[in-house]
């Protein structure tokens, strides 16, 4: 058998491959050669073969058959063999393979070897992939090596100790005595690794932390002064060639020490006091012309912010961040914006000073910087600067990328709601957002806006006029058109009569108004929801307008035979209103009463970047991408901000005009509407006034063992979600809900995410779902278990949010589930 080729040859051959298939072929041939060579138990070339195997593993090909060979190499006496063997072990083996335990004895022997390099290799490998059993066995050896005088070994032993502590936290006390002397070393390598070890210990166990902070009874000095001394030496000492990086002496060690100081000083006054001087010194003396200096300053700023520092120091830190913002280097600006975001809650005023620079960053080209600047801007909006900031933010909304528009629009709404100086300004701002980013606004922006408009009674004429002008030009943005048609329906008489205090009144005739509404109805761009709005608006105008009632009747009767079931139903019912129940028409189509305001938990949610809230407990699956889902989760909570009042706001755009009062529902129920295709009014009476889009009638089928009827919580666009209930025997206030999601369309729904929120008095726990793909044609379902704790036995309500990919586009929907059967919560 010819000698196997060297690693270099192999690499050269692979590089000549032109396609992926060629490369795979070469690799397979070589793998076969290696396997036969292994079978022959050839000692001389084993090392070479394993090296080649590791290379192929790095390229992504399976290499598990080499694991035993690695072990044999480790056991050999030659250093080159051991080296490759340990490298192979680090890369190919991990705790999951059973073979790794065989290594324990080898490592133990090598830890006591005479050559330091072999000991070093063993330490590296143990520190890389040691499992908890191995660590337990070998911790004693590691601790012994931590005390040797050989600095090469000491630093490796310290890193290995870090790994041991991570795997087996109970062994931490074993390493404690050894750490006493570690910081007395001169060698920076040892210093660095020991600081890492101390950091790990302090992070893991609060007892250790307390121990390190206290004064020790023996003559060893305290930890914090020791660290301060080392740091001072680093800064003050002159040029030392072996540790120098662009003029600064060992910045990596400086950064590590600063981080450890941060952990020690958090929430502890004494330690913080001891550090104040050195932090001020570092902050002022470090050179900022190079990136290195900036890295150290960044770490210093983070430390100052975290410990209990005096106010002068904090101001210094924020000024440093402000200086960073003006720097040309993008990295530094990004880092400054991130830190300012963290500190804006505590030091709000200081950050305000830099507001103009932050707003300038909105215009930057870089995506990460823009996102950070946007979040920070929302956090900085307050009563004084709201007009200016809004102008900038609206301009930003015009020009930013689509991925930002949704967040920006929601942020603007919340900020406007909290700080609007006048109602007119508020309405103007919202209209501006709708016209620029109309398709990206959240679903509930429309009802919120409608509610806002009804509340500002004096602005009705102005509002309807502006909305009319807006959709005259362009009726493609659905939310805008929905709001506009609703308003025209309600206040059409004000529009036609031409009275408007705020603005120049325009002359509009009734026919023109009907024209625009009809074109919305006919247009292909209108969603069916929008059409519903338009039809209802036309109907309402029949009582407000005087000379065009016949035209309205004609339009309504045309849609009595429309293909869209929703429109057809409405048209038929309105027709019936005209024919048989004309006497009731004015009463039914009266102006809407002023709606109660639901307070949203506004900007507080946006500022907290990690989405922690203290309101209703919400558990969702881990968000797929950074911040945005956290904001959406907060939005879900916002909507449930009220706990008890039955909200009167219509959450569904397709609600009929009679959603304002239960008595109207009763009226419609009593009417014997002939010719209506579905007995739709009847089930709607049984439901609470909270009509919900797509919610079918309550239990259609009986449930299983528990005896509690199950419900269909959501049924729209082919996605159906059923809830089945069980009460826990052990704890009577726990209800276990199993949801089943099924898909009746012809394409699968992928990346399905189910989120839920409950009012404050409940607690919710969401377990993992069975999968995230719902197969088509009802061929399979996704199951997920929700546990609800209801100690006060209140009526169970839940708001759910669904996101999924269907037919290549991402869909999302919010829905409220109210039809929980009483047995599930009583």
């Amino acid at each position, binding site marked *: 058998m010819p000698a196997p080729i060297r*690693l*270099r040859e192999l*690499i050269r051959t692979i*590089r000549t491959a032109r396609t992926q298939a060629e490369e795979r072929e070469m690799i397979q041939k070589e793998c076969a050669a290696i396997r036969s060579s292994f079978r022959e138990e050839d000692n001389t070339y084993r090392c070479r073969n394993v*090296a080649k195997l*590791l*290379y192929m*593993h*790095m*390229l*992504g090909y*399976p290499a598990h058959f080499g694991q035993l060979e690695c072990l044999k190499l480790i056991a050999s006496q030659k250093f080159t063999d051991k*080296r*490759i063997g340990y*490298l192979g072990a680090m*890369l190919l083996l*991990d705790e*999951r393979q059973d073979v790794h335990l065989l290594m324990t004895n080898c490592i133990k022997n090598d830890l006591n070897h005479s050559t330091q390099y072999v000991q070093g290799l063993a330490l*590296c490998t143990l520190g890389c992939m040691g499992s908890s059993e191995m660590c337990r066995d070998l911790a004693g050896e590691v601790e012994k090596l931590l005390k040797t005088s050989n600095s090469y070994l000491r630093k490796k032993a310290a890193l290995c100790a870090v790994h041991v502590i991570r795997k087996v936290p109970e062994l931490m006390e074993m390493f404690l005595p050894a750490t006493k002397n570690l910081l007395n070393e001169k060698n920076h390598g040892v210093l660095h690794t020991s600081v890492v070890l101390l950091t790990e210990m302090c992070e893991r166990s609060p007892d250790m932390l307390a121990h390190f902070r206290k004064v020790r009874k023996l003559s060893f000095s305290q930890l914090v002064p020791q660290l301060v001394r080392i740091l001072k030496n680093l800064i003050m000492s002159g040029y030392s060639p072996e540790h120098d*990086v662009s003029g600064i002496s060992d*910045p*990596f060690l400086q*950064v590590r020490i600063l*981080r450890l100081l941060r952990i020690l000083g958090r929430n502890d006054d004494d330690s913080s006091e001891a550090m104040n001087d050195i932090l001020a010194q570092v902050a002022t003396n470090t050179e900022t012309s190079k*990136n*290195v200096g*900036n*890295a150290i300053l*960044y*770490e210093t700023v*983070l430390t100052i912010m975290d410990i209990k520092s005096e106010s002068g120091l904090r101001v210094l830190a924020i000024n440093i961040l402000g200086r960073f913002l003006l720097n040309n*280097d*993008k*990295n*530094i*600006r*990004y*880092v400054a914006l991130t830190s300012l975001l963290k500190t804006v809650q505590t030091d709000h005023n200081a950050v305000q000073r830099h507001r103009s620079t932050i707003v300038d960053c909105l215009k930057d*080209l*870089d*995506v*990460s*910087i823009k996102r950070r600047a946007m979040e920070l801007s929302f956090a900085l909006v307050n009563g004084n600067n709201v007009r200016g900031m809004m102008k900038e933010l609206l301009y930003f909304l015009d020009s930013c990328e689509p991925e930002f528009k949704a967040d920006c629009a929601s942020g603007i709404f919340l900020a406007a709601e909290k700080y609007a100086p006048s109602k007119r300004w508020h309405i103007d701002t919202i209209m501006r957002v709708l016209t620029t980013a109309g398709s990206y606004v959240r679903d509930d922006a429309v009802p919120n806006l409608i509610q806002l408009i009804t509340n500002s009674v004096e602005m009705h004429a102005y509002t309807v006029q502006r909305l009319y002008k807006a959709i005259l030009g362009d009726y493609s943005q659905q939310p805008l058109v929905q709001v506009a048609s609703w308003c025209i329906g309600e206040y059409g008489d004000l529009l036609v009569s031409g009275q408007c205090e705020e603005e120049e009144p325009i002359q509009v005739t009734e026919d023109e108004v009907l024209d625009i509404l009809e074109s919305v109805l006919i247009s292909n761009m209108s969603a069916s929801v929008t059409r519903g709005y338009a039809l209802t608006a036309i109907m309402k105008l029949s009582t407000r307008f005087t000379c065009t009632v016949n035209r309205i009747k004609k339009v309504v009767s045309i849609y009595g035979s429309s293909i869209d079931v929703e429109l057809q139903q409405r048209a038929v019912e309105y027709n019936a209103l005209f024919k048989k129940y004309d006497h009731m028409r004015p009463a039914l189509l009266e102006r809407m009463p002023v709606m109660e305001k639901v307070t949203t938990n506004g900007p507080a949610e946006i500022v907290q970047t990690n989405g922690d809230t203290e309101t209703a407990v919400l558990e969702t699956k*881990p968000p*797929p*991408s*950074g911040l945005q889902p956290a904001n959406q989760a907060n939005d879900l909570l916002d909507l449930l901000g009220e706990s008890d009042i039955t909200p009167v706001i219509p959450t569904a755009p397709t609600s009929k005009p009679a959603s304002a009062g239960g008595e109207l529902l009763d009226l419609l129920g009593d009417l014997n509407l002939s010719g209506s295709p579905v007995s739709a009014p009847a089930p709607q009476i049984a439901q609470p006034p909270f009509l919900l889009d797509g919610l079918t009638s309550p239990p259609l089928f009986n449930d299983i063992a528990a005896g509690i009827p199950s419900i269909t919580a959501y049924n729209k666009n082919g996605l159906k979600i059923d809830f089945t209930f069980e009460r826990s025997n052990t704890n009577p206030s726990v209800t276990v809900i199993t949801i089943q999601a099924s898909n009746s369309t012809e394409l699968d729904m992928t990346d399905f995410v189910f989120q839920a929120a409950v009012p404050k008095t409940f607690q919710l726990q969401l377990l993992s779902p069975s999968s995230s793909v719902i197969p088509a044609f009802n061929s399979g379902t996704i199951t997920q278990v929700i546990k609800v704790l209801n100690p006060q036995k209140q009526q169970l309500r839940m708001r759910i949010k669904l996101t999924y990919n269907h037919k290549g586009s991402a869909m999302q929907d919010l829905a409220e589930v109210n039809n929980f059967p009483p047995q599930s919560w009583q």
Partner: protein
Amino acid sequence: MIKFFLMVNKQGQTRLSRYYEHVEINKRTMLETEVIKNCLSRSKDECSFIEYKDFKLVYRQYAALFIVVGIDQTENEMAVYELIHNFVEVLDKYFSRVSELDVSFSVSEIRL
């Protein structure tokens, strides 16, 4: 904590990879291609820190080679940026004017 350390060239070939957390082998190649796609699409005057899934990428370009380090939220990004440069300087000293070829051929030496 550093999650991984990659050296990938512009054509997407991995020259060196070191993972400090367990990642399945087929997921590794996917991760590498996605990461390099993100880095390639950045222009020269955009900042070197990208947010990707639940961690951050710090990347630096040297001629045709990208060095990418994946870190989690607790790390100082600028310090890692410096670390990358320090690593390259060390390689430079070791190989005296290192180039991509040196990196591809001396994989085991660099790894250790």
